């Protein structure tokens, strides 16, 4: 009898400890959630405060009493935000499309075709993954400058067309497609090229979607190369645009308009993330790193 009650009190003790631990866990996770989300809240909040009311706030207020969309209007009219936006979209689309073609061809050659020196070339490709961008960017800057391609889309796009990592990712995926399919297609008289685009690419669609999204994120956020290669505002991408806005845009004090621009720049990727978060997280955990 006594033993029984002792056991049950011990069990109770363990249970309370577990509950406390659980509550602490949720508190910790919520705190970090707030730390992550707060800057986003603050940027949206500030962007709907009017210029006057923002500057009148000696103590920052957590709500906007008279929300206004005027700042968004300013962001598009007094600085060429639409132009930055358009440039980034063009840059992102062309870069991603070109890269996709290049990597599909390369991955196909490595995965499906037999030729001498294949393993050697592939090893050399993999070795290139270890080269940091900072090391090659100097010569690329000189190359593009000498070709007279500064302040052109060609100059912006060319160096980021190939990515060894994505070739590797796609090659691994292509190799999973059984050989029999290829042989059957050959018997039917399908050409290699047709087989590649009618059979292999559709089968590997999930990987290709992941690669595309990761590349789009990379393009949208790229800053260093565009900054080196463009000094004409007509070719600025959003990252350079926002830096320009910060330094010379609305005047340093018009923080709400600046925040409106920040919101506009962030929204496309956040929408992309909300739709594709599963693919993005999976793709990144398979070997992507930031930057």
């Amino acid at each position, binding site marked *: 009898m006594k033993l029984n009650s002792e056991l049950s009190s011990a069990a109770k003790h363990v249970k309370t400890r577990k509950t406390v631990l659980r509550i602490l866990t949720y508190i910790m996770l919520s705190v970090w959630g707030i730390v*992550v989300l707060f800057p986003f809240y603050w940027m949206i909040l500030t962007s709907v405060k009017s210029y006057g009311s923002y500057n009148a706030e000696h103590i*920052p207020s957590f709500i906007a009493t008279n929300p206004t969309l005027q700042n968004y209007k300013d962001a598009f009219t007094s600085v060429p935000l639409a132009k930055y936006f358009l440039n980034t979209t063009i840059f992102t689309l062309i870069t991603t499309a070109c890269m996709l073609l290049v990597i599909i061809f390369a991955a196909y050659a490595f995965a499906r075709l037999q030729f001498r020196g294949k393993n050697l*070339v592939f090893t050399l490709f993999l070795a290139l993954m270890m080269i940091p961008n900072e090391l090659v960017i*100097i010569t690329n800057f000189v190359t593009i400058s000498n070709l007279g391609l500064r302040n052109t889309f060609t100059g912006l796009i060319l160096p980021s067309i190939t990515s060894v990592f994505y070739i590797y990712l796609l090659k691994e995926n292509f190799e999973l497609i059984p050989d029999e399919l*290829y042989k059957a297609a050959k018997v039917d008289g399908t050409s290699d090229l047709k087989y590649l685009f009618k059979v292999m690419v559709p089968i590997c669609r999930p990987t290709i979607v992941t690669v595309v999204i990761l590349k789009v994120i990379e393009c949208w956020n790229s800053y260093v190369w565009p900054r080196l290669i463009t000094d004409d505002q007509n070719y600025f991408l959003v990252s350079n645009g926002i830096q320009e806005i910060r330094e010379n845009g609305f005047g340093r004090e018009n923080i709400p308009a600046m925040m409106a621009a920040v919101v506009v720049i962030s929204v496309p990727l956040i929408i992309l993330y909300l739709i594709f978060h599963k693919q993005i*997280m999976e793709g990144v955990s398979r070997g992507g790193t*930031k930057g």
Partner: protein
Amino acid sequence: MKTNPAKAWLYLIPAIVFLGIFMVYPLVDVFIYSFEEGYNFASQSYTGTGLFNYSYVLHDPYFLQALKNTLILVVITVPLSTGLALLISLGLSSIKPLKHVFQTVYFLPYVTNTLAVGLVFMILFKKTAYTDGLINMMIQWFGGSSVDFIDGPYWAKMFVLCFYTIWIVMPFKVLILTSALASVKQDYYNAAKIDGTSTWRTFARITLPMISPMIFYLVITGFIGAFKAYQDAVALFGTDLNSAGMNTIVGYVYDMLYGDSGGYPSYASAAAIILFVIVLSITTINLMIRRKNVQY
């Protein structure tokens, strides 16, 4: 199945051409640049070869400041972010309700534009003539005195930089550690439970060894990433990092190359190679430690 070799190479040509021009050639070229003394960008001529560029860079106070900033950033952010990520991932994998929501939220900073969100951090921490800013307001709630984190004392600026860096790198680390924790076999935990092993012991003897390869992976990529810090600093302090005293090694390379202080690809190359050597040595040391300590 035999393929016509010419055809195979045809498929590879685009990739090889682009990699050749924009990866392999620059890699060779950067070493050549770094040994060419007195290189003139306009006439593309140089006066001699030697180690002068390296010696110049290593004696340049701006470089030494950048080196110091980068080292402090690395020493603070790598252990802190890895530890914090481990704590959060452990929390995440111990809960069921809301787990997915938390995961989705935590990953958000990964997809945001570093420059854009950096401006928000600047506003939160900055002290202007009109307002002390939100963070200073909170400091005052707790009885502290306000400080300008963006244009103020060195340690304050360094604090914001570290804070923002950690905010940026956390998504990747949490993601990797959460999936590492999920891949630990449930059998081990069940066995530990039957033996009545304490929570702490289970963590130290099962969880930690099982995920140690991933922790080391994060430490290594963390070191590499932190050594290459640049955009976060630009986002917070603007493009003129030298005058803010917050430059990083990568920032120094770019400043030497371009902008008001630019036009010196030789100095830039020397600095980039010094950075590469540092990163390479740290990675090698890490790998050596790893070989000694990681069980799996």
